[in-house]
């Protein structure tokens, strides 16, 4: 029995040059009156959707679409409890015209400098990791 051939759109990004290199994605976040497209590290160790840097949280005015403090969230980590602020925003993967609503977080009390996409969002996407080519792709 012959299989079906389907056309699918695919978009790829080069890994970030960490040691060792890290899969990445470009995500556009629509904040309150501000929009920003940033590179995110794909982090399967992070259980949430998006964890963003302190600077990006402020730039996007996400304190204007925050959840109540009782919903902020606490991570139990190897170095103790880490409290995060939570905000809602529309996000987009521009090359796929894929738009989703997401809960965006950033640590509440210390300056955080990275942008991470975690399992809760990764698990909604069809993702390929091409380690030898240092490239990861999302399939529509």
């Amino acid at each position, binding site marked *: 029995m012959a299989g079906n051939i389907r056309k699918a759109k695919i978009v790829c990004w080069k890994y970030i040059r960490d040691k060792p290199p890290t899969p990445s994605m470009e995500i556009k976040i629509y904040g309150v009156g501000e929009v920003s497209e940033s590179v995110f590290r794909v982090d399967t160790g992070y259980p949430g959707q998006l964890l963003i840097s302190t600077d990006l949280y402020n730039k996007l005015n996400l304190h204007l679409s925050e959840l109540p403090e009782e919903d902020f969230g606490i991570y139990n980590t190897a170095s103790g409890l880490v409290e995060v602020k939570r905000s809602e925003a529309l996000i987009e993967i521009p090359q796929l015209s894929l738009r989703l609503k997401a809960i965006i977080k950033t640590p509440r*009390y210390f300056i955080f400098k990275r942008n991470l996409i975690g399992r809760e969002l990764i698990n909604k996407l069809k993702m390929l990791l091409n380690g030898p080519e240092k490239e990861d792709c999302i399939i529509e």
Partner: protein
Amino acid sequence: MNLIKEDKRVIRERRVNNEIYRKVKSELRDYKGKYILIAKGKFLGVASDFHEAIKNLKSKAPDAKHAIVKKVGRIIEVEREWPGILERLK
């Protein structure tokens, strides 16, 4: 680890807005699935979706430094394990 120095106006408005949220929380059951908006220490109403809530914020409290926008009835998981953060904090 560097601590955040947040704008005092944001901190003050967040405290007041959360006090209002705690006061109205028990009366929100009828708005399940809708978005509530609290800013400038006032409950500013209910919107059918997130975009409408942000639009209302811009028109009703354009100079707000903090606002609460929440979908009523959505369950948020507050506590989670995150063993990998040690590496991320370096």
